[in-house]
Protein backbone atom coordinates (compact mmCIF):
# COMPACT_ATOMS: atom_id res chain seq x y z
CA UNK A 1 0.00 0.00 0.00
CA UNK A 2 2.93 2.31 0.66
CA UNK A 3 3.64 2.59 -3.03
CA UNK A 4 0.14 3.84 -3.65
CA UNK A 5 0.90 7.03 -1.77
CA UNK A 6 4.38 7.26 -3.07
CA UNK A 7 3.36 9.85 -5.61
CA UNK A 8 5.88 11.95 -7.42
CA UNK A 9 4.13 15.31 -7.24
CA UNK A 10 6.39 16.82 -9.85
CA UNK A 11 5.66 14.15 -12.45
CA UNK A 12 2.00 13.95 -11.56
CA UNK A 13 1.39 17.66 -11.97
CA UNK A 14 3.34 17.55 -15.22
CA UNK A 15 1.00 14.89 -16.59
CA UNK A 16 -2.01 16.77 -15.27
CA UNK A 17 -0.84 19.85 -17.15
CA UNK A 18 -0.45 17.87 -20.38
CA UNK A 19 -3.88 16.42 -19.70
CA UNK A 20 -5.38 19.87 -19.32
CA UNK A 21 -3.77 20.99 -22.56
CA UNK A 22 -5.06 17.97 -24.47
CA UNK A 23 -8.37 18.59 -22.77
CA UNK A 24 -8.39 22.17 -24.06
CA UNK A 25 -8.06 20.89 -27.62
CA UNK A 26 -10.69 18.21 -27.06
CA UNK A 27 -13.02 20.88 -25.69
CA UNK A 28 -12.47 23.26 -28.63
CA UNK A 29 -13.05 20.51 -31.18
CA UNK A 30 -15.98 18.91 -29.37
CA UNK A 31 -17.55 22.35 -29.08
CA UNK A 32 -17.30 22.91 -32.84
CA UNK A 33 -18.72 19.46 -33.57
CA UNK A 34 -21.61 20.05 -31.18
CA UNK A 35 -22.49 23.44 -32.67
CA UNK A 36 -22.46 22.07 -36.21
CA UNK A 37 -24.44 19.01 -35.15
CA UNK A 38 -27.02 21.13 -33.38
CA UNK A 39 -28.11 23.01 -36.46
CA UNK A 40 -27.08 20.86 -39.42
CA UNK A 41 -27.69 17.49 -37.75
CA UNK A 42 -24.55 16.21 -39.40
CA UNK A 43 -21.42 14.90 -37.84
CA UNK A 44 -18.56 16.75 -39.42
CA UNK A 45 -15.91 14.19 -40.35
CA UNK A 46 -13.86 17.00 -41.89
CA UNK A 47 -13.39 18.57 -38.48
CA UNK A 48 -10.01 16.96 -37.90
CA UNK A 49 -8.88 17.93 -41.38
CA UNK A 50 -9.89 21.54 -40.75
CA UNK A 51 -7.86 21.49 -37.52
CA UNK A 52 -4.90 20.10 -39.48
CA UNK A 53 -5.48 22.78 -42.12
CA UNK A 54 -5.35 25.44 -39.40
CA UNK A 55 -1.99 24.21 -38.13
CA UNK A 56 -0.55 24.02 -41.64
CA UNK A 57 -1.88 27.48 -42.52
CA UNK A 58 -0.07 28.90 -39.51
CA UNK A 59 3.11 27.08 -40.54
CA UNK A 60 2.86 28.22 -44.16
CA UNK A 61 2.13 31.77 -43.02
CA UNK A 62 5.27 31.85 -40.88
CA UNK A 63 7.50 30.10 -43.40
CA UNK A 64 6.50 31.84 -46.62
CA UNK A 65 4.57 34.99 -45.76
CA UNK A 66 6.35 36.20 -42.63
CA UNK A 67 3.04 36.20 -40.80
CA UNK A 68 3.85 35.72 -37.13
CA UNK A 69 1.91 33.66 -34.61
CA UNK A 70 -0.36 36.49 -33.52
CA UNK A 71 -1.43 37.29 -37.06
CA UNK A 72 -2.03 33.60 -37.65
CA UNK A 73 -4.17 33.44 -34.54
CA UNK A 74 -6.48 36.06 -36.06
CA UNK A 75 -6.30 35.33 -39.79
CA UNK A 76 -6.21 31.54 -39.91
CA UNK A 77 -9.53 30.94 -38.08
CA UNK A 78 -11.14 33.49 -40.40
CA UNK A 79 -9.64 31.80 -43.44
CA UNK A 80 -10.70 28.32 -42.32
CA UNK A 81 -14.13 29.74 -41.49
CA UNK A 82 -14.48 31.06 -45.05
CA UNK A 83 -13.25 27.72 -46.37
CA UNK A 84 -15.92 26.02 -44.24
CA UNK A 85 -18.58 28.35 -45.61
CA UNK A 86 -17.53 27.46 -49.16
CA UNK A 87 -17.65 23.76 -48.33
CA UNK A 88 -21.11 24.11 -46.84
CA UNK A 89 -22.49 26.13 -49.77
CA UNK A 90 -21.01 24.03 -52.57
CA UNK A 91 -20.95 20.46 -51.28
CA UNK A 92 -22.90 19.96 -48.07
CA UNK A 93 -25.95 22.10 -48.87
CA UNK A 94 -26.99 20.13 -51.98
CA UNK A 95 -27.43 16.92 -50.00
CA UNK A 96 -28.77 18.46 -46.78
CA UNK A 97 -32.22 16.96 -47.37
CA UNK A 98 -30.86 13.43 -47.85
CA UNK A 99 -30.21 10.87 -45.15
CA UNK A 100 -27.60 12.33 -42.76
CA UNK A 101 -25.37 9.35 -43.32
CA UNK A 102 -24.57 10.82 -46.73
CA UNK A 103 -23.26 14.07 -45.30
CA UNK A 104 -21.13 12.03 -42.91
CA UNK A 105 -19.66 10.15 -45.87
CA UNK A 106 -19.23 13.37 -47.83
CA UNK A 107 -17.29 15.09 -45.07
CA UNK A 108 -15.21 11.92 -44.65
CA UNK A 109 -14.33 12.12 -48.35
CA UNK A 110 -13.34 15.77 -47.96
CA UNK A 111 -11.12 14.84 -45.02
CA UNK A 112 -9.41 12.14 -47.10
CA UNK A 113 -8.73 14.62 -49.91
CA UNK A 114 -7.27 17.25 -47.57
CA UNK A 115 -5.15 14.79 -45.63
CA UNK A 116 -3.94 13.16 -48.84
CA UNK A 117 -2.96 16.48 -50.42
CA UNK A 118 -0.99 17.63 -47.40
CA UNK A 119 0.73 14.27 -47.07
CA UNK A 120 1.76 14.58 -50.69
CA UNK A 121 2.96 18.16 -50.36
CA UNK A 122 4.66 18.05 -46.97
CA UNK A 123 5.32 14.37 -46.26
CA UNK A 124 3.93 12.55 -43.28
CA UNK A 125 6.63 13.46 -40.77
CA UNK A 126 5.86 16.50 -38.66
CA UNK A 127 7.09 20.05 -39.23
CA UNK A 128 8.31 22.22 -36.34
CA UNK A 129 6.71 25.56 -35.45
CA UNK A 130 8.53 27.81 -33.02
CA UNK A 131 6.80 29.08 -29.89
CA UNK A 132 6.32 32.85 -30.27
CA UNK A 133 8.96 34.92 -28.46
CA UNK A 134 6.51 36.57 -26.10
CA UNK A 135 5.43 33.18 -24.73
CA UNK A 136 8.77 31.46 -24.42
CA UNK A 137 10.16 30.57 -21.02
CA UNK A 138 8.12 29.57 -18.03
CA UNK A 139 7.28 30.02 -14.40
CA UNK A 140 8.64 27.91 -11.56
CA UNK A 141 5.85 26.94 -9.19
CA UNK A 142 6.55 25.13 -5.89
CA UNK A 143 5.43 21.77 -7.26
CA UNK A 144 6.12 22.12 -10.98
CA UNK A 145 7.57 24.08 -13.86
CA UNK A 146 4.89 25.78 -15.94
CA UNK A 147 5.93 26.73 -19.49
CA UNK A 148 4.27 30.00 -20.46
CA UNK A 149 3.00 28.77 -23.80
CA UNK A 150 1.16 25.87 -22.15
CA UNK A 151 -0.45 28.18 -19.63
CA UNK A 152 -1.46 30.42 -22.52
CA UNK A 153 -3.16 27.53 -24.40
CA UNK A 154 -5.23 26.59 -21.40
CA UNK A 155 -6.27 30.16 -20.59
CA UNK A 156 -6.94 31.15 -24.18
CA UNK A 157 -9.02 28.09 -25.05
CA UNK A 158 -10.99 28.43 -21.81
CA UNK A 159 -11.79 32.02 -22.76
CA UNK A 160 -12.83 30.97 -26.28
CA UNK A 161 -15.00 28.15 -24.91
CA UNK A 162 -16.61 30.40 -22.32
CA UNK A 163 -17.16 33.12 -24.93
CA UNK A 164 -18.81 30.67 -27.32
CA UNK A 165 -20.96 29.31 -24.53
CA UNK A 166 -22.06 32.85 -23.67
CA UNK A 167 -22.72 33.67 -27.32
CA UNK A 168 -24.97 30.67 -27.75
CA UNK A 169 -26.72 30.54 -24.42
CA UNK A 170 -27.11 34.22 -23.58
CA UNK A 171 -27.31 36.38 -26.71
CA UNK A 172 -30.03 36.97 -29.27
CA UNK A 173 -27.96 35.41 -32.05
CA UNK A 174 -27.53 32.36 -29.86
CA UNK A 175 -31.27 32.26 -29.25
CA UNK A 176 -31.83 32.12 -33.03
CA UNK A 177 -29.33 29.32 -33.22
CA UNK A 178 -30.98 27.33 -30.48
CA UNK A 179 -34.42 27.95 -31.94
CA UNK A 180 -33.13 26.78 -35.32
CA UNK A 181 -31.96 23.60 -33.62
CA UNK A 182 -35.43 22.99 -32.20
CA UNK A 183 -37.59 23.91 -35.17
CA UNK A 184 -36.11 25.38 -38.34
CA UNK A 185 -39.45 25.57 -40.19
CA UNK A 186 -41.03 27.73 -37.53
CA UNK A 187 -37.97 29.99 -37.44
CA UNK A 188 -38.21 30.46 -41.18
CA UNK A 189 -41.88 31.32 -40.81
CA UNK A 190 -40.86 34.11 -38.44
CA UNK A 191 -38.79 35.61 -41.23
CA UNK A 192 -35.37 34.50 -40.10
CA UNK A 193 -32.95 33.45 -42.79
CA UNK A 194 -32.26 29.92 -41.59
CA UNK A 195 -30.05 28.82 -44.51
CA UNK A 196 -27.78 31.79 -43.78
CA UNK A 197 -27.57 30.86 -40.11
CA UNK A 198 -26.78 27.28 -41.08
CA UNK A 199 -23.93 28.42 -43.33
CA UNK A 200 -22.53 30.79 -40.71
CA UNK A 201 -22.75 28.07 -38.08
CA UNK A 202 -20.72 25.68 -40.19
CA UNK A 203 -18.24 28.46 -40.86
CA UNK A 204 -17.98 29.24 -37.15
CA UNK A 205 -17.44 25.58 -36.25
CA UNK A 206 -14.79 25.31 -38.94
CA UNK A 207 -13.14 28.49 -37.66
CA UNK A 208 -12.97 27.00 -34.15
CA UNK A 209 -11.22 23.93 -35.58
CA UNK A 210 -8.78 26.22 -37.41
CA UNK A 211 -8.12 28.15 -34.23
CA UNK A 212 -7.38 24.94 -32.36
CA UNK A 213 -4.97 24.07 -35.16
CA UNK A 214 -3.03 27.34 -34.75
CA UNK A 215 -2.86 26.84 -30.98
CA UNK A 216 -1.60 23.30 -31.49
CA UNK A 217 1.10 24.13 -34.05
CA UNK A 218 3.83 25.13 -31.54
CA UNK A 219 3.40 22.15 -29.20
CA UNK A 220 2.42 19.24 -31.41
CA UNK A 221 4.34 18.79 -34.61
CA UNK A 222 2.40 19.97 -37.65
CA UNK A 223 1.57 16.77 -39.55
CA UNK A 224 -1.15 15.65 -41.98
CA UNK A 225 -2.26 12.86 -39.64
CA UNK A 226 -2.73 15.12 -36.61
CA UNK A 227 -6.37 15.73 -37.50
CA UNK A 228 -7.63 12.19 -37.96
CA UNK A 229 -5.90 10.97 -34.82
CA UNK A 230 -7.46 13.55 -32.55
CA UNK A 231 -10.85 13.45 -34.26
CA UNK A 232 -11.54 9.83 -33.35
CA UNK A 233 -10.83 10.64 -29.70
CA UNK A 234 -13.12 13.65 -29.92
CA UNK A 235 -15.86 11.41 -31.35
CA UNK A 236 -15.57 9.21 -28.28
CA UNK A 237 -15.77 12.35 -26.12
CA UNK A 238 -18.86 13.49 -27.95
CA UNK A 239 -20.45 10.08 -27.35
CA UNK A 240 -19.52 10.33 -23.65
CA UNK A 241 -20.88 13.84 -23.24
CA UNK A 242 -23.76 13.76 -25.66
CA UNK A 243 -24.05 16.59 -28.15
CA UNK A 244 -27.19 18.08 -26.67
CA UNK A 245 -25.38 20.63 -24.53
CA UNK A 246 -22.63 23.12 -25.38
CA UNK A 247 -21.43 23.32 -21.79
CA UNK A 248 -21.47 19.54 -21.59
CA UNK A 249 -19.23 19.21 -24.62
CA UNK A 250 -16.68 21.66 -23.14
CA UNK A 251 -16.68 20.04 -19.69
CA UNK A 252 -16.41 16.51 -21.06
CA UNK A 253 -13.52 17.54 -23.30
CA UNK A 254 -11.54 19.05 -20.43
CA UNK A 255 -12.38 16.21 -18.06
CA UNK A 256 -11.29 13.54 -20.53
CA UNK A 257 -8.00 15.35 -21.05
CA UNK A 258 -7.38 15.22 -17.31
CA UNK A 259 -8.40 11.55 -17.13
CA UNK A 260 -5.93 10.82 -19.91
CA UNK A 261 -3.20 12.73 -18.08
CA UNK A 262 -3.81 10.85 -14.85
CA UNK A 263 -3.72 7.55 -16.71
CA UNK A 264 -0.39 8.51 -18.22
CA UNK A 265 0.96 8.84 -14.73
CA UNK A 266 -0.58 5.82 -13.07
CA UNK A 267 -0.76 3.32 -15.93
CA UNK A 268 0.88 4.68 -19.09
CA UNK A 269 0.08 1.59 -21.20
CA UNK A 270 -3.60 2.51 -21.17
CA UNK A 271 -3.25 6.22 -21.84
CA UNK A 272 -4.11 5.83 -25.54
CA UNK A 273 -7.22 3.84 -24.83
CA UNK A 274 -8.60 5.16 -21.56
CA UNK A 275 -11.04 7.60 -23.21
CA UNK A 276 -12.47 4.80 -25.35
CA UNK A 277 -12.85 2.68 -22.23
CA UNK A 278 -14.69 5.51 -20.49
CA UNK A 279 -16.96 5.60 -23.54
CA UNK A 280 -17.69 1.89 -23.12
CA UNK A 281 -18.54 2.46 -19.45
CA UNK A 282 -20.84 5.34 -20.30
CA UNK A 283 -22.57 3.29 -23.00
CA UNK A 284 -23.18 0.52 -20.48
CA UNK A 285 -24.53 2.74 -17.73
CA UNK A 286 -25.96 5.86 -19.36
CA UNK A 287 -26.30 5.19 -23.08
CA UNK A 288 -27.56 8.69 -23.96
CA UNK A 289 -24.35 10.26 -22.69
CA UNK A 290 -23.63 12.19 -19.51
CA UNK A 291 -25.29 15.40 -20.71
CA UNK A 292 -27.50 13.88 -23.39
CA UNK A 293 -31.24 13.77 -23.46
CA UNK A 294 -32.87 10.37 -23.84
CA UNK A 295 -33.46 10.02 -27.58
Amino acid at each position, binding site marked *: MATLFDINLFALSGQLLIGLINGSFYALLALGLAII*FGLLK*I*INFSHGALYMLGAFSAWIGLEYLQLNYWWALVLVPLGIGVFGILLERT*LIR*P*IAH*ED*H*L*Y*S*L*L*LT*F*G*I*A*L*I*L*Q*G*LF*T*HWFGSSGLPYAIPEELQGGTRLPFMYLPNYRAWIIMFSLVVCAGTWYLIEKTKLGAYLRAGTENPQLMQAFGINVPLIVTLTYGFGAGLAGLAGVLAAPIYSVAPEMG*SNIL*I*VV*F*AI*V*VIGGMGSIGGAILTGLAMGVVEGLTKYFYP*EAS*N*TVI*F*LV*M*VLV*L*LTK*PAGLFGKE*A
Partner: protein
Amino acid sequence: MNNKMLNLLLLGLALVAPLALYPVFLMKALCFALFACAFNLLLGFAGLLSFGHAVFLGTGAYVTGYLMVTYGLTPEVGILAGVGASALLGFIYGTLAVKREGIYFAMVTLALAQLAFFFYLQAPFTGGEDGLQGVPRGKLFGLVDLSDNLNMYYFVLAIFIAGFGLIRRTVHSPFGQVMKAIRENEPRAISLGYKVNQYKLLAFVLSATLAGLAGSTKALVFQLASLNDVHWFMSGEVVLMTLLGGMGTLWGPVLGAGTIIAIQNVLASGPLANYIHVIMGIVFVLCVLAFRNGLVGELQKLIRKNFN
Protein backbone atom coordinates in the same frame (compact mmCIF):
# COMPACT_ATOMS: atom_id res chain seq x y z
CA MET B 1 -34.06 -18.34 -65.31
CA ASN B 2 -32.12 -15.36 -66.56
CA ASN B 3 -30.55 -14.89 -63.16
CA LYS B 4 -29.45 -18.50 -62.96
CA MET B 5 -27.78 -18.21 -66.36
CA LEU B 6 -25.98 -15.08 -65.24
CA ASN B 7 -24.76 -16.74 -62.06
CA LEU B 8 -23.47 -19.75 -64.00
CA LEU B 9 -21.74 -17.43 -66.45
CA LEU B 10 -20.06 -15.54 -63.60
CA LEU B 11 -19.00 -18.80 -61.97
CA GLY B 12 -17.53 -19.96 -65.27
CA LEU B 13 -15.64 -16.69 -65.61
CA ALA B 14 -14.34 -16.94 -62.05
CA LEU B 15 -13.09 -20.48 -62.73
CA VAL B 16 -11.07 -19.49 -65.79
CA ALA B 17 -10.06 -16.02 -64.56
CA PRO B 18 -6.58 -17.08 -63.32
CA LEU B 19 -5.69 -17.90 -66.93
CA ALA B 20 -5.98 -14.22 -67.82
CA LEU B 21 -5.28 -12.35 -64.57
CA TYR B 22 -2.67 -12.57 -61.84
CA PRO B 23 -4.09 -14.95 -59.16
CA VAL B 24 -2.94 -12.84 -56.20
CA PHE B 25 -4.80 -9.85 -57.59
CA LEU B 26 -7.92 -11.96 -58.02
CA MET B 27 -7.64 -13.34 -54.48
CA LYS B 28 -7.23 -9.84 -53.09
CA ALA B 29 -10.32 -8.72 -55.00
CA LEU B 30 -12.30 -11.73 -53.71
CA CYS B 31 -11.27 -11.11 -50.09
CA PHE B 32 -12.29 -7.48 -50.29
CA ALA B 33 -15.47 -8.38 -52.15
CA LEU B 34 -16.44 -10.68 -49.27
CA PHE B 35 -15.49 -7.98 -46.77
CA ALA B 36 -17.63 -5.42 -48.60
CA CYS B 37 -20.56 -7.85 -48.89
CA ALA B 38 -20.39 -8.48 -45.15
CA PHE B 39 -20.33 -4.76 -44.52
CA ASN B 40 -23.20 -4.22 -46.93
CA LEU B 41 -25.31 -6.74 -45.05
CA LEU B 42 -25.22 -4.28 -42.17
CA LEU B 43 -25.36 -0.95 -44.02
CA GLY B 44 -27.39 -1.81 -47.08
CA PHE B 45 -29.93 -4.15 -45.53
CA ALA B 46 -30.13 -3.21 -41.86
CA GLY B 47 -29.34 0.49 -42.42
CA LEU B 48 -26.54 0.55 -39.82
CA LEU B 49 -23.37 2.43 -40.75
CA SER B 50 -20.45 0.88 -38.91
CA PHE B 51 -17.37 3.02 -39.30
CA GLY B 52 -15.05 0.56 -37.64
CA HIS B 53 -15.53 -2.59 -39.62
CA ALA B 54 -11.81 -2.99 -40.27
CA VAL B 55 -11.49 -4.23 -36.70
CA PHE B 56 -13.22 -7.48 -37.63
CA LEU B 57 -11.16 -7.92 -40.77
CA GLY B 58 -8.02 -7.31 -38.74
CA THR B 59 -9.02 -9.54 -35.84
CA GLY B 60 -9.65 -12.43 -38.21
CA ALA B 61 -6.29 -11.81 -39.85
CA TYR B 62 -4.32 -11.49 -36.59
CA VAL B 63 -5.84 -14.50 -34.84
CA THR B 64 -5.50 -16.78 -37.86
CA GLY B 65 -2.01 -15.45 -38.57
CA TYR B 66 -0.82 -15.85 -34.99
CA LEU B 67 -2.16 -19.37 -34.58
CA MET B 68 -0.73 -20.54 -37.88
CA VAL B 69 2.69 -19.02 -37.21
CA THR B 70 2.93 -20.26 -33.64
CA TYR B 71 1.18 -23.62 -33.69
CA GLY B 72 1.34 -24.49 -37.39
CA LEU B 73 -2.36 -25.26 -37.59
CA THR B 74 -3.92 -26.39 -40.82
CA PRO B 75 -5.52 -23.50 -42.72
CA GLU B 76 -9.13 -24.57 -42.17
CA VAL B 77 -8.63 -24.67 -38.40
CA GLY B 78 -6.75 -21.37 -38.45
CA ILE B 79 -9.53 -19.70 -40.39
CA LEU B 80 -12.17 -21.17 -38.12
CA ALA B 81 -10.40 -19.74 -35.07
CA GLY B 82 -10.05 -16.30 -36.69
CA VAL B 83 -13.70 -16.29 -37.65
CA GLY B 84 -14.68 -17.33 -34.13
CA ALA B 85 -12.65 -14.50 -32.62
CA SER B 86 -14.27 -11.97 -34.95
CA ALA B 87 -17.71 -13.28 -34.12
CA LEU B 88 -17.02 -12.94 -30.40
CA LEU B 89 -15.67 -9.42 -30.81
CA GLY B 90 -18.65 -8.63 -33.04
CA PHE B 91 -20.97 -9.74 -30.26
CA ILE B 92 -19.23 -7.56 -27.67
CA TYR B 93 -18.93 -4.49 -29.89
CA GLY B 94 -22.40 -4.99 -31.32
CA THR B 95 -23.95 -5.13 -27.86
CA LEU B 96 -22.40 -1.75 -27.10
CA ALA B 97 -23.02 -0.14 -30.48
CA VAL B 98 -26.72 -0.95 -30.86
CA LYS B 99 -27.38 1.13 -27.78
CA ARG B 100 -27.02 4.22 -29.97
CA GLU B 101 -28.51 5.11 -33.32
CA GLY B 102 -27.65 6.88 -36.55
CA ILE B 103 -24.49 8.93 -36.51
CA TYR B 104 -23.78 8.00 -32.89
CA PHE B 105 -23.68 4.38 -34.02
CA ALA B 106 -21.04 5.34 -36.57
CA MET B 107 -18.99 7.22 -33.97
CA VAL B 108 -19.22 4.44 -31.38
CA THR B 109 -18.07 1.79 -33.85
CA LEU B 110 -15.21 4.02 -34.99
CA ALA B 111 -14.09 4.66 -31.42
CA LEU B 112 -14.34 0.97 -30.48
CA ALA B 113 -12.30 0.06 -33.54
CA GLN B 114 -9.64 2.59 -32.51
CA LEU B 115 -9.55 0.97 -29.07
CA ALA B 116 -8.73 -2.34 -30.73
CA PHE B 117 -6.21 -0.61 -33.01
CA PHE B 118 -4.20 0.58 -30.00
CA PHE B 119 -4.49 -2.87 -28.44
CA TYR B 120 -3.04 -4.50 -31.56
CA LEU B 121 -0.38 -1.79 -31.77
CA GLN B 122 0.84 -2.53 -28.25
CA ALA B 123 0.13 -6.25 -27.85
CA PRO B 124 3.30 -8.34 -28.03
CA PHE B 125 1.97 -10.99 -30.40
CA THR B 126 1.09 -8.74 -33.34
CA GLY B 127 4.56 -7.55 -34.23
CA GLY B 128 3.54 -3.90 -33.78
CA GLU B 129 4.34 -1.70 -36.75
CA ASP B 130 5.92 -4.56 -38.73
CA GLY B 131 2.88 -6.80 -38.47
CA LEU B 132 2.83 -10.58 -38.38
CA GLN B 133 4.96 -11.70 -41.27
CA GLY B 134 5.55 -15.05 -42.89
CA VAL B 135 2.19 -16.62 -42.11
CA PRO B 136 2.34 -20.12 -43.65
CA ARG B 137 -0.52 -21.06 -45.95
CA GLY B 138 -0.21 -24.71 -44.95
CA LYS B 139 -1.97 -27.72 -46.43
CA LEU B 140 -5.74 -27.70 -46.64
CA PHE B 141 -7.05 -30.69 -44.62
CA GLY B 142 -3.42 -31.79 -44.65
CA LEU B 143 -3.78 -32.67 -48.34
CA VAL B 144 -3.85 -29.73 -50.72
CA ASP B 145 -0.75 -27.54 -50.73
CA LEU B 146 -1.96 -23.94 -50.64
CA SER B 147 1.44 -22.40 -51.25
CA ASP B 148 0.56 -23.02 -54.88
CA ASN B 149 -1.21 -19.86 -56.01
CA LEU B 150 -3.71 -21.66 -58.21
CA ASN B 151 -4.80 -24.02 -55.41
CA MET B 152 -5.06 -21.05 -53.10
CA TYR B 153 -7.17 -19.19 -55.63
CA TYR B 154 -9.78 -21.94 -55.87
CA PHE B 155 -9.83 -22.21 -52.08
CA VAL B 156 -10.46 -18.46 -51.79
CA LEU B 157 -13.11 -18.66 -54.51
CA ALA B 158 -14.89 -21.44 -52.60
CA ILE B 159 -14.81 -19.35 -49.41
CA PHE B 160 -16.17 -16.36 -51.25
CA ILE B 161 -19.01 -18.34 -52.80
CA ALA B 162 -19.93 -19.82 -49.42
CA GLY B 163 -19.90 -16.40 -47.76
CA PHE B 164 -21.82 -14.75 -50.57
CA GLY B 165 -24.36 -17.58 -50.58
CA LEU B 166 -24.90 -17.17 -46.85
CA ILE B 167 -25.46 -13.44 -47.28
CA ARG B 168 -27.92 -14.00 -50.12
CA ARG B 169 -29.78 -16.60 -48.09
CA THR B 170 -29.91 -14.22 -45.12
CA VAL B 171 -31.19 -11.30 -47.15
CA HIS B 172 -34.02 -13.36 -48.60
CA SER B 173 -34.94 -15.04 -45.31
CA PRO B 174 -37.67 -13.85 -42.93
CA PHE B 175 -34.85 -12.45 -40.78
CA GLY B 176 -33.69 -10.43 -43.77
CA GLN B 177 -37.18 -9.05 -44.25
CA VAL B 178 -37.24 -7.86 -40.65
CA MET B 179 -33.83 -6.24 -41.16
CA LYS B 180 -35.15 -4.31 -44.12
CA ALA B 181 -38.26 -3.34 -42.16
CA ILE B 182 -36.03 -1.92 -39.42
CA ARG B 183 -34.04 -0.01 -42.03
CA GLU B 184 -37.15 1.49 -43.56
CA ASN B 185 -39.11 2.30 -40.44
CA GLU B 186 -37.75 1.36 -37.05
CA PRO B 187 -40.62 2.66 -34.91
CA ARG B 188 -43.07 0.62 -36.96
CA ALA B 189 -40.97 -2.50 -36.58
CA ILE B 190 -40.96 -1.92 -32.82
CA SER B 191 -44.71 -1.41 -32.72
CA LEU B 192 -45.17 -4.67 -34.63
CA GLY B 193 -43.50 -6.37 -31.69
CA TYR B 194 -40.05 -7.05 -33.10
CA LYS B 195 -37.20 -6.82 -30.62
CA VAL B 196 -35.32 -4.44 -32.85
CA ASN B 197 -32.07 -4.39 -30.91
CA GLN B 198 -31.78 -8.17 -30.99
CA TYR B 199 -32.21 -8.15 -34.75
CA LYS B 200 -29.64 -5.40 -35.11
CA LEU B 201 -27.23 -7.29 -32.89
CA LEU B 202 -27.66 -10.50 -34.86
CA ALA B 203 -27.06 -8.62 -38.12
CA PHE B 204 -23.98 -7.02 -36.58
CA VAL B 205 -22.54 -10.35 -35.41
CA LEU B 206 -23.21 -11.98 -38.75
CA SER B 207 -21.55 -9.11 -40.58
CA ALA B 208 -18.56 -9.13 -38.21
CA THR B 209 -18.19 -12.91 -38.59
CA LEU B 210 -18.08 -12.72 -42.37
CA ALA B 211 -15.71 -9.75 -42.25
CA GLY B 212 -13.51 -11.91 -40.03
CA LEU B 213 -13.68 -14.70 -42.61
CA ALA B 214 -12.48 -12.24 -45.24
CA GLY B 215 -9.66 -11.13 -42.93
CA SER B 216 -8.52 -14.67 -42.07
CA THR B 217 -8.47 -15.58 -45.73
CA LYS B 218 -6.60 -12.40 -46.61
CA ALA B 219 -3.95 -13.19 -43.99
CA LEU B 220 -3.31 -16.51 -45.72
CA VAL B 221 -3.27 -15.00 -49.21
CA PHE B 222 -0.71 -12.32 -48.36
CA GLN B 223 0.89 -14.36 -45.54
CA LEU B 224 0.68 -11.16 -43.53
CA ALA B 225 -1.50 -9.56 -40.88
CA SER B 226 -0.71 -5.91 -40.30
CA LEU B 227 -1.96 -2.73 -38.69
CA ASN B 228 -3.32 -1.62 -42.07
CA ASP B 229 -6.04 -4.23 -41.64
CA VAL B 230 -7.35 -2.57 -38.46
CA HIS B 231 -6.72 1.07 -39.39
CA TRP B 232 -9.65 3.48 -39.73
CA PHE B 233 -8.64 4.02 -43.33
CA MET B 234 -9.55 0.41 -44.06
CA SER B 235 -12.95 1.00 -42.44
CA GLY B 236 -13.44 3.96 -44.75
CA GLU B 237 -12.34 1.96 -47.75
CA VAL B 238 -14.98 -0.72 -47.26
CA VAL B 239 -17.63 2.00 -46.98
CA LEU B 240 -16.41 3.40 -50.28
CA MET B 241 -16.45 0.00 -52.00
CA THR B 242 -20.03 -0.56 -50.93
CA LEU B 243 -21.14 2.95 -51.82
CA LEU B 244 -19.47 2.87 -55.22
CA GLY B 245 -20.88 -0.53 -56.12
CA GLY B 246 -24.34 0.20 -54.79
CA MET B 247 -25.41 -0.37 -51.22
CA GLY B 248 -28.41 -2.54 -50.58
CA THR B 249 -27.74 -4.58 -53.72
CA LEU B 250 -26.24 -8.06 -53.57
CA TRP B 251 -23.68 -7.62 -56.34
CA GLY B 252 -22.87 -3.95 -55.73
CA PRO B 253 -20.16 -4.49 -53.10
CA VAL B 254 -18.50 -7.16 -55.27
CA LEU B 255 -18.31 -4.78 -58.20
CA GLY B 256 -17.29 -1.87 -55.95
CA ALA B 257 -14.51 -3.87 -54.29
CA GLY B 258 -13.24 -5.09 -57.65
CA THR B 259 -13.24 -1.55 -59.04
CA ILE B 260 -11.42 -0.02 -56.07
CA ILE B 261 -8.81 -2.78 -55.95
CA ALA B 262 -8.26 -2.42 -59.71
CA ILE B 263 -7.94 1.37 -59.44
CA GLN B 264 -5.43 1.01 -56.60
CA ASN B 265 -3.45 -1.55 -58.56
CA VAL B 266 -3.26 0.68 -61.61
CA LEU B 267 -2.44 3.80 -59.59
CA ALA B 268 0.19 2.12 -57.43
CA SER B 269 2.60 1.74 -60.34
CA GLY B 270 1.74 4.99 -62.13
CA PRO B 271 2.66 8.63 -61.62
CA LEU B 272 -0.39 9.18 -59.42
CA ALA B 273 0.76 6.72 -56.74
CA ASN B 274 1.04 9.48 -54.15
CA TYR B 275 -2.48 10.64 -54.81
CA ILE B 276 -4.28 7.38 -53.92
CA HIS B 277 -5.92 8.84 -50.81
CA VAL B 278 -6.88 12.01 -52.65
CA ILE B 279 -8.44 10.02 -55.47
CA MET B 280 -10.31 7.78 -53.01
CA GLY B 281 -11.60 10.96 -51.38
CA ILE B 282 -12.73 12.40 -54.68
CA VAL B 283 -14.52 9.15 -55.60
CA PHE B 284 -16.22 9.34 -52.19
CA VAL B 285 -17.42 12.90 -52.77
CA LEU B 286 -18.59 12.15 -56.31
CA CYS B 287 -20.47 9.03 -55.19
CA VAL B 288 -22.31 10.93 -52.49
CA LEU B 289 -23.11 13.97 -54.61
CA ALA B 290 -24.06 12.43 -57.92
CA PHE B 291 -24.03 8.70 -57.76
CA ARG B 292 -25.84 7.56 -54.67
CA ASN B 293 -27.22 4.35 -56.15
CA GLY B 294 -23.78 3.13 -57.09
CA LEU B 295 -22.75 1.21 -60.19
CA VAL B 296 -25.23 -1.63 -59.79
CA GLY B 297 -28.03 0.72 -58.76
CA GLU B 298 -27.54 2.91 -61.82
CA LEU B 299 -27.32 -0.18 -64.02
CA GLN B 300 -30.62 -1.47 -62.65
CA LYS B 301 -32.20 1.92 -63.31
CA LEU B 302 -30.93 1.87 -66.88
CA ILE B 303 -32.30 -1.62 -67.50
CA ARG B 304 -35.66 -0.72 -66.00
CA LYS B 305 -35.90 2.41 -68.14
CA ASN B 306 -35.11 0.61 -71.37
CA PHE B 307 -37.51 -2.27 -70.79
CA ASN B 308 -40.49 -0.08 -69.97
